[in-house]
C-alpha cells in the first residue's frame, strides 16, 4: 500500500482541484463546465484513449509477433527502424496529418492515436519475444512442446513484461495526445482546456487539465499493476520511460 501512497496523493490532488474549480461555477462572463458536462467529457476522453489502445493492441501485438517468425525476419529491421523513427515524430504532426486525410472528428483522432501507439507496441512485442533465451525454447522443444505450445507457454509469458511496458507507455502517452486531439473536434477534456486557453480563463483550463492529469496518473498505476500481475514470478517487470506528447 505504501508504494501507492504518492500516486494516491497526486490523484486525490487532481480530483480535489477538479471539484474545486467546478464549484466556482462562473468566472466573470464565462460559465465554467457544469459537472454533467465535465463527466461527459471525461468519458469521451477515456473512450478515445481506450478505442485507440484497443486498436493499437489488436494490430500491434500480432504484427510484432509475426515479425519474430523466421519467414518475416527479413522485414523486421526495416520495421523496427520505422517504428523508432516514427516515435521521434511529434504527436501534433501526427494528429494534423490524420485530420487532413480523414477530416475532423472522433474517427481521425482515434486512428491517429492508434497509429502512434502502435509503434511502441510493435517494437516492444518484437523485442520482448526476441529476447527470450533460445536455450529456453530449445529446452521446451526438447521436452516435446509443439510450436503453438512454445508460443503460448514460453515465449509470450516471458515476453509479457516488455509487451506490457509498451502498452502502458503508449496508453499513458495517449491520454495527453487525446487532449491535443480535442483541437480536431474529437471532444474530450482537451476541448475544455482549449476553450479555457482561448478565453484566458485559468479556472477553466485547470478544470480540464486536472482530470486529464488524474486520468494519466490513474491509468499509469492501473497498467503498472497489470504489468506486475502479468509478469511471471521470478522475473523483474520491465521499465520504460513514457514519451510525452
Amino acid at each position, binding site marked *: 500500500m505504501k508504494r501507492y501512497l*504518492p*500516486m494516491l496523493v*497526486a490523484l486525490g490532488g487532481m480530483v480535489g482541484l477538479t471539484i474545486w474549480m467546478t464549484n466556482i461555477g462562473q468566472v466573470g462572463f464565462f460559465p465554467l463546465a457544469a459537472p454533467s458536462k465535465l463527466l461527459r467529457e471525461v468519458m469521451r476522453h477515456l473512450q478515445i484513449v481506450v478505442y485507440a489502445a484497443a486498436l493499437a493492441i489488436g494490430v500491434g501485438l500480432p504484427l510484432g509477433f509475426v515479425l519474430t517468425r523466421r519467414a518475416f525476419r527479413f522485414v523486421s529491421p526495416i520495421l523496427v527502424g520505422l517504428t523508432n*523513427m516514427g516515435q*521521434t*515524430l*511529434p*504527436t*501534433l*504532426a*501526427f494528429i*494534423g*496529418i490524420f*485530420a*487532413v486525410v480523414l477530416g*475532423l472528428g472522433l474517427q481521425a483522432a482515434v486512428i491517429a492515436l492508434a497509429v502512434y501507439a502502435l509503434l511502441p507496441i510493435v517494437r516492444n512485442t518484437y523485442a520482448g519475444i526476441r529476447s527470450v533465451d533460445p536455450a529456453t525454447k530449445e529446452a521446451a522443444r526438447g521436452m516435446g512442446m509443439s510450436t503453438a505450445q512454445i508460443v503460448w507457454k514460453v515465449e509470450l509469458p516471458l515476453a509479457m513484461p516488455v509487451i506490457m511496458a509498451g502498452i502502458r507507455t503508449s496508453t*499513458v502517452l495517449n*491520454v*495527453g*495526445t487525446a*487532449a*491535443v486531439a480535442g*483541437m*480536431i473536434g474529437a471532444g474530450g477534456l*482537451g476541448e475544455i*482546456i*482549449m476553450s*479555457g*486557453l482561448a478565453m*484566458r480563463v*485559468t479556472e477553466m*483550463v*485547470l478544470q*480540464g*487539465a*486536472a482530470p*486529464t*492529469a488524474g486520468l*494519466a*496518473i490513474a491509468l*499509469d498505476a492501473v497498467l503498472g499493476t497489470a504489468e506486475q500481475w502479468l509478469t511471471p514470478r521470478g522475473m523483474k517487470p520491465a521499465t520504460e*520511460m*513514457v*514519451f*510525452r*506528447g
Partner: protein
Amino acid sequence: MLFETWRYIGNNWAYIGRLTVEHLQIIAVANGSAVFFGVLIGIFVSGRGRERLAQLVMYLASIMITIPSLALYGFLMGILSALGLRSIGFLPVVIALTLYGLLPIIRNTYTAITEVDPAMIEAGRGMGMSELQILWKVKLPLAVPVIMAGLRQAVVMNIGIAAIGAYIGAGGLGQLIFRGIANWRPHLIVTGAIFVSLLSIAADLLLGRVEWLATPKGIRTRGRA
C-alpha cells in the same frame, strides 16, 4: 493539396525559417536549463547516503512526465498568473519543457554515476585522488555519454511538446498546424507537420552523432552511430 503545400513552402520560406528559429530557441533555452539543473540534481542525489532522496526525486520526475502537456501548460498558467507573471507565451512553455526534460537527464546522470565500477573509484581514491577529482576525472567523463543520451531523448520529446506550446502563444512551427486547423487550411497543417517532423528527425540524428563524439574513445562499444 500537395501542390498547394509545395507552393506555400516556396512562397513562405522566410516565415517558416523564422518559426523554426523560434522553435529552436525554446528548445535551446528549455533543454539548456534542464541539463544544467538535471545534472546538478543528478550529481547531488547520487551522493552517499542519499539513496532515499534519489528515489523520491526520480519518482516525482516520473509522475511529472505522465502529466499531459496541455494539462501542464494549464497548471503553469494558473501558477504564473497567481504570481503575477506572464502566463502565456514563451515563459510557461520553457518552464514546462524544462520540467519534462529533467527526468531523462536526472535519471541518466544518477544511473551513470552510481553505476561507475566501485573498483575504479577505490583505485582512484587509493591513489590519492580527492573526491572532487574522482567526480571530475572518473565519474563525469564516464557519465557524459549517458547524460547525452538523456539529453537526446529530452530534446526529441520536447520538440513535439513545444509544437503544442504554440497554442498558448509561444510561437514556433506548431503555429502553422494550429492556424491550419482553426481556419481549415490543410496545406498549412501539412507544412507544419513536415517541418516539425524534419526538425525532430534532424535533432535525433545530430544528437546521436554528438553522443558518439562525447563518448570517451576507450568505452565506445560500436562504430560510428
